[in-house]
């Protein structure tokens, strides 16, 4: 038995090794290049850098707090109303901000809250001469919450969905009020997953670049990512870039460890039912509050997207869609995105499986280093800037092969790695719950290997796998960093084309391409949901 199951830590170790090699290889190669080039020492930790590091942390922590604080009531409201009109569409829309290049999101946000935006228009038509000014910390937080609130909501909702429906049945029978339900049923589940969700958002915000500079109002708003870009790109000071990257990694680990302490892992329940059927009937007041919360959330996320759609519709879409270069970019984006998403799924699943195996085998209360690495270590790849990974691998590969031929491999590899933290968080709750329900039963019945995978694990994983795939692909669709680095214009993706047009006065074209990118992503979410739904139907038909 043990011989058969013991491959599990190895798959996890392989996935971890891949991620470590991707980031570590790049850093090592840069470090050795820096030492060889004789750049004078590593970064001096001056007051400028200190200020930058402080600002980076403050904005990331505030963004994280705000996103999570708003996400919890929104996710609760959505969970309490499985039949809310357009709920499925709202959830799909919530995957879109991820796929938007930062510049598109910034312009979408200014079209609502900017000096010439909808809000300013509303003020002036009401006869007020207030001009909204978001530039500075408010603008940064606004943009980060816009990006991360939908993500946090979906993740909190996913953890609420993992609550067995027996609990709801029982809660309804006992006549639990809203607060009792929240504190006794929902909060313990949310809290267990919260440190992971918050950590993910923290890492997304700590590496923010375009948003921080563009909406930050001036160089007071500078993140470490900007300093890393500056030192690698403009100053070509590799040593400084490496040490700043290590600083960013160190700060992130420190904060995540602090956060990790707040979450107390507990065992999942053993119920078999995981559909979100709610038995209690929310009162009229609760219904009104929930509806208001959902509408507010939808407005907050939807308005900037609406701004993007309006400018997109102003573009000459017919001409854009007749350009072969646009179609090629769409095809390239889909192929690269799908490949990255598949690789990401494989990596994440390996990590999830190995982590759960380690956890189920250990006799101690606190997880060992390997288990911790499977959990946290895998996420750290996000805070290694793509420009650093790209430059490092460029140096490593330049003498062996033509670095340009490495470009598609790098793009897929880096995008897959960057999506791991998302896919990991979607797959882990499902896998862990399924494992805690099935491990002993399978052991008793002697169901192992392929049979177990096919009969037991696969049915439980299909749905989250579909969602994780769609998320990973959406993330890859919007990525630009890696491609821009290798600068091979034979791989032109949609965001590449978008920024290229934006960079040469063709603002209208860029707006049209942003719309196309958004529609593509929405279709992807539809396909993922449809696929999952039809699989579930087949399943029901077979079982019934």
């Amino acid at each position, binding site marked *: 038995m043990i011989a058969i199951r013991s491959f599990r830590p190895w798959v996890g170790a392989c996935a971890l090794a891949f991620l470590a090699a991707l980031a570590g290889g790049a850093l090592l190669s840069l470090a050795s290049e820096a030492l060889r080039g004789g750049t004078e020492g590593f970064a001096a930790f001056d007051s400028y850098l200190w200020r930058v590091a402080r600002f980076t942390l403050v904005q990331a922590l505030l963004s994280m707090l705000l996103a999570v604080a708003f996400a919890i009531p929104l996710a609760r409201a959505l969970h309490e109303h499985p039949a809310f009109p357009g709920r499925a569409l709202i959830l799909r829309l919530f995957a879109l901000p991820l796929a938007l290049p930062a510049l598109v999101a910034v312009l979408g946000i200014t079209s609502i809250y900017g000096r010439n935006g909808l809000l300013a228009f509303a003020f002036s038509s009401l006869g007020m001469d207030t001009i909204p000014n978001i530039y500075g910390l408010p603008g940064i937080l606004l943009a980060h919450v816009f990006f991360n609130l939908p993500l946090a909501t979906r993740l909190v909702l996913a953890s609420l969905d993992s609550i067995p429906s027996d609990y709801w049945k029982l809660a309804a029978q006992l006549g639990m009020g809203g607060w009792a339900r929240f504190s006794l049923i929902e909060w313990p589940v949310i809290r267990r997953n919260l440190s992971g969700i918050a950590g993910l958002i923290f890492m997304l915000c700590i590496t923010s670049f375009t948003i921080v500079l563009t909406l930050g109002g001036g160089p007071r708003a500078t993140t470490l990512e900007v300093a890393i870009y500056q030192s690698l790109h403009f100053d070509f000071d590799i040593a400084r870039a490496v040490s700043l990257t290590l600083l960013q990694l160190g700060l992130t680990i420190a904060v995540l460890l602090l956060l990790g302490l707040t979450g107390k892992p507990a065992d999942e329940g053993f119920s078999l039912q995981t559909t979100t059927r709610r038995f209690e009937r929310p009162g009229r007041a609760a219904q009104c509050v929930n509806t208001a919360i959902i509408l507010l959330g939808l407005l907050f996320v939807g308005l900037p997207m609406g701004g993007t759609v309006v400018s997109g519709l102003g573009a000459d879409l017919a001409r854009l869609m007749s350009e072969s270069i646009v179609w090629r970019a769409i095809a390239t984006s889909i192929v690269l995105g799908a*490949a990255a998403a598949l690789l990401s799924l494989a990596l994440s699943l390996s990590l999830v499986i190995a982590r759960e195996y380690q956890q189920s085998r250990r006799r101690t209360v606190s997880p060992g280093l390997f288990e911790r690495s499977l959990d946290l270590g895998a996420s750290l790849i996000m805070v290694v800037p793509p420009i650093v990974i790209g430059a490092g691998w460029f140096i490593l590969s330049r003498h062996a092969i033509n670095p340009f031929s490495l470009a598609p491999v790098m793009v897929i590899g880096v995008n897959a790695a960057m999506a791991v933290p998302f896919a990991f968080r979607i797959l882990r709750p499902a896998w862990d719950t399924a494992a805690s329900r099935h491990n002993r039963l399978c052991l008793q019945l002697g169901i192992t290997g392929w049979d177990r995978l096919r009969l037991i694990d696969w049915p439980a994983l299909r749905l989250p796998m579909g969602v994780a795939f769609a998320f990973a692909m959406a993330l890859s669709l919007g990525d630009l960093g890696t491609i821009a680095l290798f600068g091979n214009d034979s791989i032109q993706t949609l965001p590449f084309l978008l920024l290229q047009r934006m960079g040469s006065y063709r603002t209208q074209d860029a707006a049209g391409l942003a719309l196309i990118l958004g529609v593509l992503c929405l279709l992807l979410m539809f396909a993922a949901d449809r696929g999952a739904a039809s699989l579930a139907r087949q399943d029901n038909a077979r079982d019934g």
Partner: protein
Amino acid sequence: MRPFETIVKTAAIVTALFAVIPLGTAHAEGKLTVYTYESFTAEWGPGPKVKQAFEKQCACTVEFVAVADGVALLNRVKLEGESTKADVVLGLDTNLTYEARQTGLFAPHGIDTTAVSIPGGYKDDTFVPYDYGYFAVIYDSEKLKTPPESLKELVEGDPKQKIVIEDPRTSTPGLGLLLWVKSVYGDKAGEAWAKLKDRVLTVTPGWSEAYGLFTKGEAPLVLSYTTSPAYHLIAERVDRYKAISFSEGHYLQVEVAAQTVNGAKNPLSAQFLAFMTSPAFQDAIPENNWMYPAAKTTDALNPAFETLVQPVKTLIFPSEEVAKNRKAWIDEWLAAMSL
């Protein structure tokens, strides 16, 4: 497991897709490899026209390899070092030529450059100019009736009339404005920035973000080039965006190309540099790169170019001075802007 099969299949398809990309081999028979920046090789950029025109007269093939911008171009060459596959590097600007020369990777051009005409003159044995432009503040004439007429008026004017500028730490136009202010204010540049700060709506990482905010109507002023209105006039028939002629003069940006030490062994390199100063190349500059041609074009420029601001004075620092002071000047900017 099906997903794994799909991964293998997708990987095979992707590999097949990209395996057809020709791998550049240095100095293959009749082949010239030119490293440049992306907007040069975009389908509307000068690249396609230039390639066609040169291939017609050289009986060779031109391969463009494009990176993000001029700075990335120099980084790429530095990273590749002596084994670079580039014959010609096209797209450095005068702020980078000193550093580029220090690498020892570039070879003298050895061609006759008398056809080249740049304001203030440009003589160099390694770098050959192919176009130039002036930085300028563009204003939205529908939003702003009385734009500032000098850098001084911009600095001291109404802080409610906002301007969007680019970051000198991450972008070429940002560095351009920094040098512009330095060349006008000298030692007092820090004080000027401290005054201008209130008028700056935001500092963007690159030109695209700044110009995007400007055309969205977020600010009536933006830092760009004197040639920007030409694009709106010719391609969009819009005349609301205008450049302002500053009485102190405008800072000049000259874009240059050079052959690498490797490329000097390929006779096509020098031939290309000479071709660069001919009308066949220069014709592709004004309405594709939206810059001024560095030598004669076949026909006169589009009349829209006649309407553009002609700087009363050309400002430029020698490349070496920029290279040596850039860090100190950026620190000065940072200190003033972070007050």
